[in-house]
Structure formats: structure tokens, C-alpha cells
């Protein structure tokens, strides 16, 4: 299985990505997708947009390492990770994870694993644009805990 990893400024189409992953395959019995979407508020204040900065070469390498880790833990038949960067308006998609397997357990678990690691290990940084100015989003300890549970069990 060759995973698809893309970092892009442009929007993506979830249905197209599922179709690309499953086209011509009859061994895949389960596809799970997670889409992260830009909300219109941050800490109770309305936001105009998110600006996503990233470290391109490392982001690609780091996501690739985590897809490999997921493949060593679950019998995946396909995986797609797309992460956008640049300016993203409320309501627009930010990130997509698609996992495919013969049964749903592996697809669900691998998608959750990948998202937990993307949140805490992939070199992306969100800056919010509000009327009061621009500010960097602070990392959440809840996200660290979510990622940690995969190593502590």
C-alpha cells in the first residue's frame, strides 16, 4: 500500500479522495474519514480566518512516519492524509484523514491515531485573525493526552 500525503493551499474534495483510494479495489471493506473544519470562533470571540504556517519538508516526513506507524499497528489497505496551509476561512476544511481496511475496527483506530499525532507532532501552527488582531493558537494539553494514550497502553 502506498499512502497519499499532500500538503496544499487548495481545498480538497472528500468524495474524490475516497474514490481515489477505493477505485478498482474489492478487498476494502471499510473506509473511515475525518475532516477537520475551521470554526468561526476561538475562545468565544469571532474569527475572520486561520493562517496556517508549516515546515513543509518536516511535515511531509513526520506524517509519513506516522502513517508507517499506523500501518505497523493495523492491517491498513490504504491511507490518505491531506493538510492545508495558508489562509483558511471559517467553514472551510483544514485537514483530511482517510483510512481503509477490510474491517472497520482497524480503519477507525488508525484514523484516530493519525489525527491525535497530527495534532501534536506534525509541524503546523495556527494563527487566528480576529478584529482585535492576530494571535497564535496555544497547544492544548488535552491533545497531548490524546496522543499519549497510544503509547501508554
Amino acid at each position: 500500500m502506498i499512502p497519499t500525503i499532500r500538503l496544499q493551499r487548495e481545498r480538497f474534495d472528500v468524495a474524490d479522495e475516497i474514490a481515489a483510494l477505493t477505485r478498482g479495489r474489492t478487498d476494502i471493506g471499510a473506509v473511515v474519514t475525518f475532516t477537520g473544519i475551521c470554526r468561526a470562533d476561538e475562545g468565544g470571540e469571532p474569527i475572520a480566518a486561520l493562517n496556517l504556517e508549516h515546515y513543509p519538508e518536516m511535515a511531509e516526513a513526520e506524517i509519513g512516519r506516522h502513517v508507517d506507524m499506523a500501518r505497523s499497528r493495523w492491517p491498513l489497505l490504504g491511507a490518505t492524509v491531506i493538510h492545508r496551509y495558508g489562509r483558511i476561512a471559517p467553514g472551510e476544511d483544514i485537514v483530511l484523514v482517510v483510512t481503509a481496511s477490510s474491517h472497520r475496527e482497524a480503519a477507525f483506530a488508525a484514523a484516530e491515531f493519525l489525527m491525535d499525532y497530527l495534532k501534536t507532532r506534525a509541524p503546523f501552527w495556527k494563527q487566528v485573525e480576529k478584529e482585535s488582531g492576530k494571535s497564535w493558537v496555544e497547544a492544548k494539553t488535552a491533545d497531548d493526552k490524546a496522543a499519549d494514550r497510544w503509547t501508554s497502553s
Partner: protein
Amino acid sequence: MKVRYFAWVRERVGKAEEEIDPPPDIATVGEFVAWLAQRGEGYAHAFENPKVVRSAIDKTHVPANARIKGASEIAFFPPMTGG
């Protein structure tokens, strides 16, 4: 060695990247950070709380005690907030 900065570390330092040849007695990432912090106001501000700043050597996360010998690129950035 290429040094890269991201997000608020980049803003505080005032540049995205630069070439630096650290003094030979600097062995670890932590020592390099302490040395960088003395280079000026922006650097001091960026590294005022070194425990918060994350590091990567050649595109891989590393702890503060990692050795910098042989590194071609070292990056400093805040905790990640992607996804």
C-alpha cells in the same frame, strides 16, 4: 548549519532562517539554545522559556540533550497546533 524558525519563534527572532556556525564547545541543542538567546533582544525573547520551544534536527523531533554534531538543519518552533 542552516537554522530555521517557525511561528512566534520566527516572529520574535525576526527572520525565518539563517546560516550559523556554532562555536565548537556547543554540543547539544540545549546549549545551542542558551547560546542563541544571548545573540540579541529578539533571540532572548524567543528563547526566554526554553522548555516551551521545540526542536528538530534534519526534520526529526529531538530533545534538548540531542547532539548537534553533523546536523545540516536545525529548527526551533512552538508546540504544534495543526490538525
